[in-house]
C-alpha cells in the first residue's frame, strides 16, 4: 500500500521548496480581481496628512498574479525536477492527508511555514490547489491560533493551525489556551520527525520531540500521533468529532514528517472514515422538568447566560424562555446570548437583580461562584451577594470535561440542581416543560412584569446615553466618543464587532450599553484565557470568515494587545481581508497601571512609580505608521475628537472596497 520514503527525499532542499511554494501561493492567494485601479489608494482619496495610503500592488506582484496555471505548473515542475524528478510522478502521504482534510470541508490552515511539515505545506498549495484548505500566511504561530479561534466564532466552523511540534507549538500555546478557556474547537497539526534515523542533523533534531502534544495536553481535549496514513485519517476525523462535540475544545494531531513524505502506491487501499457529528448532550428530562416547575413558581427568577448560545438558535431559545417567564437575563456575553435592546436584557442591573432573586438559573456559566458572590481582590475577601434560601440551578457541560492542572474551571459553586448537558441543546426541552407547567393564571401574573422590565431597560439605556456625553469633547478621546462615532459609521452595514481584546470593560462596555447587538454574530466575545495577543489576530480570522458571509468586520484594538501580534495586520493586507481596526490607544497597560497603583496605595508607599512598567510612552508608538508599513490604509494618531468622524468615514470606504484599514485613536484609559 505505502512504501518507505526514499532517503534521497532529503535532497529536496527547503530553499527550493519555498521558491515553489511562493510562486504557487502567490498565484492562488491573491484575488484575481485585484488591480492597481482598485487598490485602497484608489478606493479612497484624502488630503489629510494623518491618512496614509497603501501602495498599489507592484508590477512584479501583478505579473505573478497574471501567470497562467500552465506557467505556474511549469515553474513548479522545474523546482521539483531540480531536486528529485522521480517524486513528481508519485502520490505522497501528505496528499492523502489533504484528501482527509477536504473530506471534512476544512476551509483554512493558519500557519507560519516550517520544515517539519514541508510535505503538508506543499500538498496544500500544489496537490490541493490551495483551496479547502487554503494556506493563510501568519507571522507568528500565536497569531495563527488566535486567527483560528476568531474564525470559528464567526464561521461556526473549525479551522486548523499548522506548526512545528516544538518551537511553533511553544509560540502557539497561549492562544490554544485562550481557545480552551473559550470552548473553541481548533485543530492543531504539529510537525515532527519521530524516527531519529530520518533526522538530518541540526535543526531537524531541535524540531523533533518524543511527545510534542505533551506541552498542550493540559488544555487540549484530545491528541494523537498516528503512525500510519490510515491511522491519520481516523485520528483526523476522530479529532474533528471530539473537538466539535460540546464541550468544544482544541485538539492536537502530531504529523510525522516521514509519514508526510511516504509514497502512496495504492491510494484506493486507504479509506477516509465518514464524519458524523455527535449530537450535543442534553440535560436529563426529570431534572429539567423540576427546574421548569421551580422557574414557573419563582417570584423573582434571574437567568445568567455566558457561553449558552453556541449558534444563533441559542439566542432565539433564550429569548423565548425569558419571555415565557418574563425573567430578566444577565448576559455575560462570552457569546452574544441576548439582544442588547430586548427589554429582558437587564445586564446593567445584575447586582441588584441577583441580590433580590429567589431563583438563579446559570446557563453555561464558567464562573457561577463569581456571579453569586462579590469579591474584594485587594482585601482578598468575599461574601455572598444572594439572599438566603435562593434556589441555584446550573445547566452546563462544565462537569463533562475538565482537567486538573490549569485552574480555568473556577471556584466550586454549591447549587440545588446541577444539570450536566449542553444548555443550548437542553433549552428546547426546558421551554416545553415550562409551557407544560405554566397555568393560564400564572402566565397572566408573570406578564404583568413586562411593563416594569421595559421601564428598567429604558432607564438603564438613558443613563448610559447621558454618561456617554460626559467627556464627549475631551482629548484624549473618551472611549464613549470613540465607540459611538464608530457605531454611527457602521450601523447601517451588516456589521460584526469581531474583537474587543481581553475585555470589553477596557472600553467601558459602550458597545453593549448603547449598540443594537441584535444578532449572535455581531459580538464574538473576548480572549477568554486573558492571554494578551488575542485581539488583532482573532479579529483577522473572524474577518476572513465574515468576508465570505458578507459582513462588515470591526475590531476595537487595545494598544498593548496590538504590540504582541501586530504581524496579523500584514496577513490581513496580504490576503485582502476587509477589517476595520480602531485603536484604543491609551498608551498603557491600563489595567495593570490601576492594579499596581492600588497595591502601592494599600501599602502606603506612594503612587509615583505606578507607571513604571505599565505605560507605553516615551516614545509613543505610531500605530498608523506601523499599519502603513504593512500595507494597510491608516489614519491617526487622532487626539482631537473632531478628527475622528472624517477618518472613520474614509476607513469604512476602504474596508467596503475589500481591504483592511486602521484608525489610531489616542484615548482615555477606559
Amino acid at each position, binding site marked *: 500500500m505505502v512504501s518507505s520514503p526514499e532517503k534521497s527525499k532529503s535532497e529536496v532542499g527547503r530553499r527550493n521548496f519555498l521558491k515553489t511554494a511562493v510562486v504557487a501561493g502567490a498565484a492562488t492567494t491573491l484575488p484575481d480581481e485585484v488591480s492597481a485601479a482598485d487598490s485602497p489608494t484608489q478606493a479612497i482619496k484624502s488630503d489629510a496628512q494623518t491618512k496614509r495610503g497603501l501602495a498599489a500592488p507592484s508590477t512584479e506582484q501583478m505579473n505573478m498574479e497574471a501567470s497562467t496555471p500552465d506557467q505556474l505548473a511549469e515553474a513548479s515542475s522545474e523546482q521539483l525536477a531540480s531536486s528529485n524528478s522521480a517524486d513528481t510522478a508519485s502520490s505522497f502521504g501528505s496528499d492523502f492527508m489533504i484528501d482527509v482534510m477536504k473530506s471534512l470541508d476544512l476551509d483554512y490552515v493558519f500557519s507560519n511555514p516550517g520544515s517539519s511539515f514541508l510535505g503538508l505545506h506543499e500538498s496544500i498549495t500544489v496537490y490541493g490547489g490551495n483551496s479547502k484548505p487554503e494556506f493563510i500566511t501568519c507571522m507568528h504561530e500565536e497569531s495563527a491560533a488566535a486567527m483560528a479561534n476568531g474564525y470559528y466564532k464567526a464561521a461556526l466552523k473549525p479551522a486548523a493551525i499548522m506548526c512545528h511540534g516544538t518551537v511553533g507549538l511553544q509560540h502557539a500555546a497561549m492562544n490554544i489556551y485562550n481557545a480552551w478557556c473559550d470552548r473553541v474547537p481548533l485543530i492543531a497539526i504539529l510537525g515532527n520527525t519521530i524516527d531519529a534515523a530520518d533526522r538530518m542533523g541540526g535543526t531537524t533534531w531541535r524540531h523533533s520531540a518524543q511527545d510534542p502534544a505533551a506541552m498542550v495536553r493540559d488544555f487540549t481535549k484530545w491528541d494523537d500521533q498516528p503512525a500510519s496514513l490510515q491511522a491519520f485519517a481516523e485520528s483526523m476525523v476522530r479529532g474533528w468529532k471530539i473537538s466539535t462535540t460540546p464541550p468544544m475544545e482544541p485538539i492536537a494531531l502530531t504529523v510525522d514528517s516521514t509519514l508526510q513524505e511516504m509514497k502512496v502506491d495504492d491510494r484506493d487501499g486507504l479509506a477516509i472514515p465518514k464524519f458524523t457529528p455527535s449530537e450535543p448532550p442534553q440535560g436529563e428530562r426529570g431534572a429539567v422538568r423540576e427546574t421548569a416547575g421551580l422557574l414557573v413558581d419563582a417570584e423573582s427568577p434571574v437567568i445568567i447566560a455566558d457561553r449558552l448560545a453556541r449558534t444563533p438558535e441559542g439566542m432565539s431559545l433564550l429569548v423565548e424562555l425569558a419571555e415565557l417567564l418574563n425573567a430578566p437575563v444577565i448576559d455575560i456575553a462570552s457569546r452574544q446570548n441576548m439582544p442588547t435592546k430586548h427589554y429582558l436584557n437587564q445586564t446593567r442591573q445584575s447586582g441588584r437583580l441577583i441580590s433580590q432573586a429567589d431563583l438563579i438559573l446559570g446557563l453555561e456559566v464558567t464562573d457561577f461562584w463569581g456571579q453569586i458572590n462579590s469579591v474584594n481582590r485587594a482585601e482578598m475577601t468575599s461574601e455572598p451577594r444572594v439572599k438566603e434560601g435562593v434556589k441555584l440551578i446550573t445547566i452546563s457541560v462544565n462537569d463533562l470535561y475538565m482537567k486538573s492542572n490549569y485552574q480555568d474551571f473556577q471556584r466550586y459553586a454549591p447549587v440545588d440542581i446541577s444539570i450536566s448537558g449542553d444548555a443550548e441543546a437542553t433549552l428546547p426541552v426546558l421551554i416545553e416543560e415550562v409551557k407544560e407547567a405554566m397555568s393560564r393564571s400564572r402566565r397572566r401574573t408573570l406578564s404583568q412584569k413586562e411593563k416594569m422590565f421595559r421601564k428598567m431597560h429604558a432607564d438603564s439605556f438613558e443613563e448610559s446615553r447621558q454618561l456617554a456625553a460626559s467627556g464627549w469633547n*475631551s482629548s*484624549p478621546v473618551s472611549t464613549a466618543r470613540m465607540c459611538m462615532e464608530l457605531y454611527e459609521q457602521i450601523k447601517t452595514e451588516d456589521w460584526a464587532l469581531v474583537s474587543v481584546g481581553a475585555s470589553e470593560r477596557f472600553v467601558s462596555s459602550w458597545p453593549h450599553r448603547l449598540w443594537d447587538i441584535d444578532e449572535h454574530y455581531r459580538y464574538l466575545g473576548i480572549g477568554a484565557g486573558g492571554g494578551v495577543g488575542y485581539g488583532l489576530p482573532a479579529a483577522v480570522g473572524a474577518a476572513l470568515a465574515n468576508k465570505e458571509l458578507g459582513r462588515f468586520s470591526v475590531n476595537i484594538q487595545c494598544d498593548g494587545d496590538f504590540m504582541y501580534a501586530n504581524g496579523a495586520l500584514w496577513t490581513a493586507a496580504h490576503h485582502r481581508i476587509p477589517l476595520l481596526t480602531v485603536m484604543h490607544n491609551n498608551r498603557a497597560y491600563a489595567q495593570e497601571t490601576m492594579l499596581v497603583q492600588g497595591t502601592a496605595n494599600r501599602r*502606603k508607599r506612594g503612587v509615583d512609580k505606578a507607571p513604571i512598567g505599565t505605560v507605553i510612552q516615551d516614545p509613543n508608538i505610531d500605530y498608523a505608521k506601523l499599519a502603513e508599513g504593512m500595507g494597510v490604509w491608516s489614519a491617526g494618531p487622532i487626539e482631537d475628537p473632531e478628527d475622528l468622524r472624517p477618518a472613520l468615514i474614509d476607513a469604512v470606504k476602504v474596508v467596503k472596497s475589500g481591504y483592511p484599514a486602521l484608525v489610531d485613536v489616542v484615548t482615555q484609559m477606559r
Partner: protein
Amino acid sequence: MKITDLANTLTFLCLFGAKFAVAQDISIERGEQTYMRVGCYECHGTDGKGNEAGPPLTPDTLPPEAIANFVRFSPGRMPVYPEEILSDAEIADIVAYLESVKPSPDADSIDILRALVSEEN
C-alpha cells in the same frame, strides 16, 4: 454612594471639616498635576469626566472634605489614598482643578446620542 459611605462622609465632615475651612493656597494648575501624578485620571479620565472604571467627578464636584473621606476610607474598588500619599491640601487643589473643567455637552445636543433615542423607541 451607599448609605454607609454617606454616613462616613457626614461623620468626617463634622469631625474634620474645620481643617478644610482654613484658607489655603489653592492652585488649579497644581491640582491638575497632582490629579495626574497620583493616577486619578486612570479611572476617572484626564478631566474627571468618568467612565465604567470610575464615575464622573465633574460637574457637581464634591467638596474636598467629602472627597477626602471617600479616598481615605473607600470600601470598594477605589484604591485607598491615606494622608501620607495624598494630603488634604492636595485634595483641595484637585477639587479646584475639577471645578475648573469645562462642562460636557448635554447628550441631546450631540447628534449621535440624540439619534439613539429614536432608535430605542
